[in-house]
């Protein structure tokens, strides 16, 4: 992580409270200061595609609101009281205690508190997510690991064709609901049974979690987040995993994705190719029809910059280069990728169509990224795919800007997806709508 950082583009581990809220009928219980929750859901939710409270988020989230007393005398008793009363007041089926910096520093025994409720048969688990430990993406992994260790039960059988889907981080990705739905749909088209945990619907959430141990395969679609989780699932339940490091956007990457998953899950090649063919035909119908205007508008951007988390930086770069014929300027990855993953992600940026490569910078400090970009010499108006922080910069360098990565405070995101064939079409619509509305 950077020494210091300007322009928040991810938050701290406790931000994983939003991952708990993404599980239907699960509720986080914060053992943290009074303001932690509000700051975190404000940045990851309200100011990120207008993702609000939902069923039990926002100011409904139970919290010990740690004060001076708990800092001095410890907060175990307060936590016990809040968890006990949460079980009475909140209508939910899984309660996940998440600690903040304060309780982790003063050394509360949160595990012991959780175990006492577990012994009484209460659905209470815990994760130590003190904010100083890392990012919310790291926190998301901690929460999934806590679920694996404290909630999942081994299965007696393996259900053939059942595929667990692990991918974008809920709320951090403002388009997570749409993206997961699109991945689900692609996997289902292969004749497999996708099992998605996060998102709306009674078949997701705890029902989906219950099925995780009997899946045939864990598919992780992510540059790095979640790798530890699928490895953990392999250790614990012997489920093999497939790590697909690129968020598939557009026909080239999505076809590759479908072939990789299909082959790993034992889907007949003919079937895979049929799915690809059908989707490509539809995708190219729209692209062909709009190509005249896309090609003949004088203002088209030729070069692009991403300032985004690794999901979007990589996924969007692959699409814009391999499918749309754009060229990369520097690509900035802002989700605090630890060193162990940086080389493999960089390698992906050296592997585009026609031998094109892109320079990658891992940096969470938006201020220094902006300084860097201000020094660049552009020969046409650059397309900047970043966050709401980059609107000011885009004006300065006369660019076109679209917010796709947290914080997306300038857009409303409901079920839009940027994944697969459909998602690629949405992205093309969004980019070129900005270009066209810019001069009109």
């Amino acid at each position: 992580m950077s020494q210091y950082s300007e322009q928040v583009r991810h938050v701290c581990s406790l931000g994983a409270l939003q991952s708990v809220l993404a599980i239907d009928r699960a509720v986080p219980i914060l053992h943290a200061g009074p303001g932690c929750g509000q700051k975190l859901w404000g940045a990851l939710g309200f100011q990120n595609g207008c993702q609000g409270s939902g069923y039990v988020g926002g100011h409904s989230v139970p919290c010990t609101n740690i004060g001076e007393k708990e800092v001095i005398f410890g907060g175990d008793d307060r936590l016990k009281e809040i968890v006990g009363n949460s079980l009475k007041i909140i209508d939910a089926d899984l309660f996940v205690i998440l600690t903040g910096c304060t309780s982790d520093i003063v050394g509360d025994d949160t595990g012991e508190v959780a175990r006492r409720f577990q012994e009484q048969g209460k659905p209470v688990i815990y994760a130590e997510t003190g904010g100083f430990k890392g990012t919310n993406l790291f926190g998301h992994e901690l929460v999934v690991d806590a679920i694996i260790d404290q909630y999942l039960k081994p299965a007696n059988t393996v259900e053939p064709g059942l595929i667990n889907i692990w991918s974008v981080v809920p709320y951090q990705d403002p388009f997570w609901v749409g993206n997961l739905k699109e991945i689900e749909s692609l996997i289902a088209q292969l004749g497999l049974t996708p099992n998605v945990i996060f998102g709306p619907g009674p078949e997701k959430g705890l029902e989906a979690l219950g099925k995780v141990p009997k899946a045939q395969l864990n598919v992780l679609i992510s540059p790095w987040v979640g790798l530890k989780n699928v490895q953990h699932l392999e250790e614990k339940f012997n489920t093999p995993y497939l790590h697909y490091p690129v968020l598939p956007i557009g026909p080239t990457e999505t076809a590759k994705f479908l072939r990789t998953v299909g082959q790993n899950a034992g889907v007949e090649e003919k079937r895979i190719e049929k799915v690809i063919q059908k989707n490509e035909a539809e995708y190219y119908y729209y692209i062909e029809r709009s190509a005249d205007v896309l090609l003949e508008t004088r203002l088209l951007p030729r070069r692009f910059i991403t300032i985004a988390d690794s999901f979007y930086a990589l996924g969007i770069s692959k699409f814009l280069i391999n499918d749309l014929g754009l060229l990369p300027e520097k690509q900035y990855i802002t989700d605090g990728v630890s060193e162990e993953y940086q080389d493999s992600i960089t390698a992906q940026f050296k592997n585009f169509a026609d031998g094109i490569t892109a320079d990658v910078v891992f940096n969470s400090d938006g201020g220094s990224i902006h300084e860097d970009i201000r020094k660049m010499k552009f020969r046409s108006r650059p397309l900047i795919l970043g966050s709401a922080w980059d609107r000011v910069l885009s004006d300065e360098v006369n660019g076109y800007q679209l917010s796709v990565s947290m914080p997306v405070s300038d857009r409303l995101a409901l079920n839009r997806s940027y994944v697969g064939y459909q998602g690629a079409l949405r992205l093309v619509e969004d980019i070129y709508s900005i270009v066209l509305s810019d001069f009109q």
Partner: protein
Amino acid sequence: MSINLNISEVAIRENRLGSVTGYQGSIKELAAQASSCSLKNKERCFSQSSACSSGCAQGYLSRIVDAAIVVHAPIGCAADSVYSNTQNKWGEKVRNWKHRNINVINTNMVEEDTVFGAVAKLKEAIREAYRRFNPKAIFVTTSCVSGIIGEDITSVLDELEEEIPIPLAPVFCEGFKSKIWASGFDAAFHAILTKIVKPPQRRTNKVNMINFSGSARKQIVETLARFDLEPVFVAPYSTVEELSKMSESAATISICGTLGSYIGNGLEEHYGVPYVKTLQPHGIVGMDSWLRGLGAVTGKEQEVEAYIREEKEKIASDLAEIREKLQGHTAVVGMGPSFGHNYIRTIQELGIKVIWGATWHFDPQYDNGKTPASTELLASQEVDIPVSVGDQQNYELLNLLNRLKPDLYVARHGGSTVWATKLGIPSVMVADEFSAFGYHGLIDFGYRLSDALTNRSLAKNLSSRVKMPYTDWWMAQDSFIFLENEVV
């Protein structure tokens, strides 16, 4: 009551003003206990995530146009800068200014910093903030982590004093220290008072207008011009230099008693700038009181009276019309204490019956040692109003709203109205501090309430399709059962 500018940290509201976050009773009882110093706080044995001082301090200071903030904390504590940046753009839009990003740097404290300290990192971040933003002042905000591990912020700033030739101000706003997030405003103003404000060289015709976004800027400029006065909007969208001269102003006025108490009384006590301690300027009675207060301290009583007469005449027929529309409706109010007690009165002026007033905390006294005028006025009315105090505890409020079933819920602070709407109660969020500002503002606000009552489809549809996150057991309990009483 005295404001001490020789210490680096101002006491939190609980200790300084006897403020509380747990209470249930009536406005008359509350006022009586406040004036007799017998008000006691009550704790809760269930609580939901509320808010903290650092959010208020950072959000408020980050919108000073040429200052920078260094947040000495893990990155999550700077997450509110995302919201502050959006907020900042709103105020820029109001002023037709070009957009900029707010100047906030975070020291990104990590695990090893909690063991070894991060003083060196903080110094680097301050130097970098100075290089990047070329600010006229740097505010360094603290966090739970920096507070618990005992980082000596004051010494760091002293050491950098020679190297960095601008005011470096510590802002002590650790979240765990106070349940009252408004303590963060005091921390921010204490930093401004001790490090930015300079002793007066002259007396000007300026008026310090303490507020948030300043959306009624144009109107205030025009109104004060009638009295040969000129507003300085404090602190967002002001410059460090403007803030430094607050001591020279003819008076201080505030849109919010909670916000203005510390700076207003501080400027009065130390620099003789009179602070107008009347009702806040929401609705007619509030605006009358506020303008008369300003007129009295600036010698403009006659001009003020003429203005009040004119403005009231202008709205007379509109007021009668909107009162007729709203007459007989009921409302519950949920806001910070100053807005809450001022808005109860304002809503009453529109002919609506306020059947409950919930405030997020309560100050039995302000920094001048007196009970807020808005509380005293409500307590002097014939009808007593049931009130409660809670740090935005939704479970309590939702249980209460479900029982009271008012026609309207009027709230300030995000994350409240959506829940009332889910209960089927049309709700209005007072996001802008000038929503019911004075005479015309009252009429506009009245029509806003009327519109909310006229089409209730969203509330109706939502409530019939979504489930509340509370158990049937809880919704059947008394709303205040968890206030000091543990359910076993």
